[in-house]
């Protein structure tokens, strides 16, 4: 490990810092070099970007905390207004009393004025840092805020540096009017070897680090192709480790018996692949699942939805209305539709799959007309039928197009997939045996459009 030297900071702190930030030594060294000695003026603004879980915030905040530098760390998600940002910065630097001086709805100039006033009372002996996490949210705030923060050093005439942390590149930030260009600094993704090194850190106390390292190697061998997110990998490592150790605890294998352990864990990891990123269940439930069901359980998306009888039909009707061209309704839903010449029947643009084009909006009238012809039995147009439509909208199975307040001929879109509809229709068909044939005719008829 290269020893990081930086004048002005205690050396042993730096060493422990470097130890705590594995695989980020180069970034640490560069950052420290950028910051310079504590009392020196630093670059006005630094923009740090990199993928999620590449240690951006962790590195920066560790530096700040360990070296005990004056800093204000603000998460931009919290700042629904710029006033909150100012409030947090001022209270971090000058105490809550200073922040209380801010007027209601403070403007940028209020902030600058107050900052100047405060810093003239207590001028900076060390560089002050403002760390803005999730800086991409700043773009939604006041348009002048970002350019102003980038050259805050000039504005307040104080030794202050703004560090922006973001997952997206600077090009997406640059305002139209141009601004002071911050120093760009990239945090690269961890390589596989680095991931192994980091993941091996949290090894289990009752097992040797070598065993854990080999476990991590196995884990990465399975998951590295689909997932490089450190956070997710750590979650998976914790989740599956007990399973890995099972033969050891039973005494069936020794720690050196890596091949046997691998044989044991491999099917479980394959199964875990199916739900990677999903986090549908907690660790407890995950283990129970293994315990109770030897067969792989695929957590199906549609397994549990139960809807009232007519809601199912409404949903089917909405699906048909969304994916069938209105022109063909006569052919599908009228008993005596007459002959339609096959050649003219499909227009050229309709031959491309409607599923690639997505659902189309349809008016309520059309939905109801298709509904009545699909249900086949006489249904009174009761209030509860219509309230079912609105409850389908609430469940986000349908979505209303246009404004919510539109009472006059509202339009809807169906927002569920074909699989879902097929599952539902199967269920309805079980309920009504008489209906089965007709329904399948419907679906067969719709096949050209699917």
């Amino acid at each position, binding site marked *: 490990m290269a020893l990081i030297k930086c004048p002005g900071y205690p050396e042993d702190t730096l060493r422990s810092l470097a130890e705590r930030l594995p695989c980020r030594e180069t970034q640490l060294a560069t950052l420290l070099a950028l910051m310079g000695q504590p009392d020196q003026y630093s670059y006005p603004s630094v923009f740090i970007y990199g993928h999620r879980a590449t240690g951006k915030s962790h590195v920066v905040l560790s530096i700040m905390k360990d070296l005990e530098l004056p800093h204000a760390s603000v998460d931009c998600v919290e700042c629904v207004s710029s006033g909150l940002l100012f409030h947090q910065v001022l209270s971090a630097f000058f105490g809550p009393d200073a922040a209380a001086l801010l007027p209601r709805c403070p403007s940028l100039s209020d902030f600058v004025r107050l900052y100047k006033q405060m810093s003239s009372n207590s001028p900076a002996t060390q560089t002050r840092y403002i760390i803005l996490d999730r800086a991409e949210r700043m773009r939604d705030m006041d348009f002048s805020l970002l350019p102003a923060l980038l050259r805050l050093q000039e504005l307040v005439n104080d030794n202050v540096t703004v560090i922006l942390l973001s997952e997206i590149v600077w090009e997406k930030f640059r305002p139209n009017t141009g601004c002071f260009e911050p120093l760009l600094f990239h945090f690269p993704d961890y390589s596989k070897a680095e991931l192994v090194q980091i993941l091996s850190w949290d090894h289990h106390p009752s097992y040797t680090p070598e065993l854990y390292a080999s476990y991590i190697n196995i884990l990465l061998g399975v998951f590295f192709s689909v997932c490089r997110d450190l956070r997710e990998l750590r979650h998976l490592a914790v989740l599956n480790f007990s399973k890995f150790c099972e033969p050891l605890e039973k005494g069936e294998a020794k720690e050196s018996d890596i091949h046997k352990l691998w044989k044991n864990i491999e099917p479980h990891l394959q199964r875990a692949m199916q739900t990677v990123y999903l*986090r549908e269940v907690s660790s407890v439930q995950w283990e129970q699942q293994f315990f109770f069901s030897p067969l792989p359980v695929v957590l199906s998306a549609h397994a549990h939805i139960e809807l009232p009888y007519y809601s199912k039909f409404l949903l089917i009707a909405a699906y048909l209305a969304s994916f069938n061209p209105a022109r063909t309704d006569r052919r599908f839903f009228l008993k005596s539709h007459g002959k339609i010449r096959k050649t003219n029947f499909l227009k050229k643009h309709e031959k491309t799959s409607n599923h690639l084009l997505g659902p189309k909006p349809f008016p309520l009238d059309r939905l109801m007309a298709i509904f009545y012809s699909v249900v086949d039995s006489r249904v009174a147009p009761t209030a*509860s039928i219509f309230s079912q439509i609105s409850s389908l909208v609430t469940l986000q199975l349908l979505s209303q197009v246009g404004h919510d307040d539109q009472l*006059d001929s509202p339009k809807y879109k169906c927002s569920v997939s074909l699989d879902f509809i097929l599952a539902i229709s199967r269920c309805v068909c079980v309920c009504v045996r008489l209906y089965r044939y007709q329904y399948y005719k419907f679906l067969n008829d719709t096949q050209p459009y699917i």
Partner: protein
Amino acid sequence: MHVDYCEICDGKNIGTYSTASLLALSIIDLCETFYCHLGVNVPDHAMTFRSLCNLLQDSVTPFVVSVHAKECAAVKLLIQKVLEQLMGRGVSVDEEQEDDTALLQRTQCTIIFPQRTESLTNSDLPQSLPVVVIFKDFEAFNSQVLQDFILICSRYTQELPFIFIFGIATSPSAIQHRLPHSVSSLLCIEVFHSLSCTQHLASVFDKLILNSQFPFKLSSRVIQVLVGIFLYHDFSVQNFVKGLQFSMLEHFKSQPLSMLCCQKQEALLSAKTLSKKNVERIRHLPSFMRYVETQEPQEQVQLLTNDEHVKEVCQQLLKNLHKYHKNYYPILQCLHSLTSSLPKFPLGKHIRELHVSCIEKNLWETEEYDSALQLLRILAKDELVAALRKCAEILKSTKILQNVLQQLEDFIGRLEALEEDSSGNGIISGKMEYQRTDLFQLQKTLLEKESRRTKRMNPFEVLRSQVIEFIDSLVREYLTPAELQPLNEVCYYNSSGVLRQRLNVTPRTSIQAALSHPFYYLQNESLKTDAGTISSAAPDLCIVYKLHLECGRLINLYDWLEAFLTVMSAAEDQDTNSEDARFIQAVSEMEFLGFIKSTKQKTDHVARLTWGGC
């Protein structure tokens, strides 16, 4: 009635809670999250969440917040709402103050909280109490708001453990649809399923309807209407219970003899003191008339003339009715437990279906019953014994019908005693004499053999058919249809039409009825008209409506006006000046009601929005 449902609800939540508390103690990943996966109906959820909220408040943490999507359109509002509920009303933000101040307290909140929790918890509890946020309708929340809220909370989770409870009506995969991975990976998720609403319905049925405790009963039609609304429209147990309450009110309001619908002693007492009018009413009850017809002529005269005699008979009949109900439900349960395991469920999967068919007609005359008995006749021994044991259990718990129970146990004993005997049977004994036969002879002997074999059943088969006959006799004795019992009108509410009209409303049909038959609502004699004619005495709106029914999709306003004037001219005494204005007013009312709208396709035309109804 209401309380009963609450109990059911609570029972469920206690189950949920026990796991919840376990988890609250386990390692907290970042923000702990529970999905309560509920059915689709909304009215029931409010109650579930209220009791869940109370339970959590009593036993886990005082900091329970429940939020509704309607109130939280933005993160700011959501946080404000949460803080308001957490800090109590006293600390809540002044309404005059800016919204932002509430948000500023967000940061203070982290300071305030540990202090508060310290003051509240004893030193025995090392960990600080979590803050529970219940999102009642997860699907309705704006996903951006949720994401931001979760991100913000995850920043404070070191100092302040958060637990989110999402009420999800569709499926747990909704979470992946609504939240991106960067947010959902902050959560440690546990899924809970509530009981399905049909199971809830079954328990409500068990406690309220299939129970002899309550004298008020529903007829088969009414049950079908209520269950139909439940299954076809809303899946809401609460609405079902409301329907039940409504039918009870309606029964006591509309049926004067419902004064006899109470507990046995009271009913007998009030039967003794029946007024003359009520005696007359009893005589007019269809079921009583049927009863009278079955009596001797001497008795008939007595019943029709002597009030005192009617009262006595009435008491006897009421006693019989109560006894009938007492016996009916256990036997119904027995029959259900016997038939519910049969393939294809000939008598229905749920006991309510069986109940409906029992009270409406003679069950033993139906085809389904025959096929059920057929299936019972081929049951294997162990299945039969198990089913009979179940019946015995049911009868034991009710403590009535002891003789039936006795017989059942007797049968079970005999079935079990059969062990060895059954082995040596079914083989036709006797030596065959081999001889030359012609075809006819062969046929004859084969037929003989066949008939001999069918005649000779083994002891188990004999016993089994005895058991089936016994069950059949029970059904014929105790499951006679309630609607044939004398005086059933006292207890049974049967106007299903009224119920359907009230609970399953059809706004458009009633508007159309009002417009085409104004007499129906206004009760004015002069409005009575024959079908097809338009009376000038009717309100303008009705005339305009009837005229528009004769038009196509587009209506020419001038023609319409002409027709209107023609109708109006039938009544001479009207002054003609105001008719244009009245027509215009009526047309705009039609537009307001949604029957027509203005169109740009043709000038001077309006478009019709409804079809049919002519």
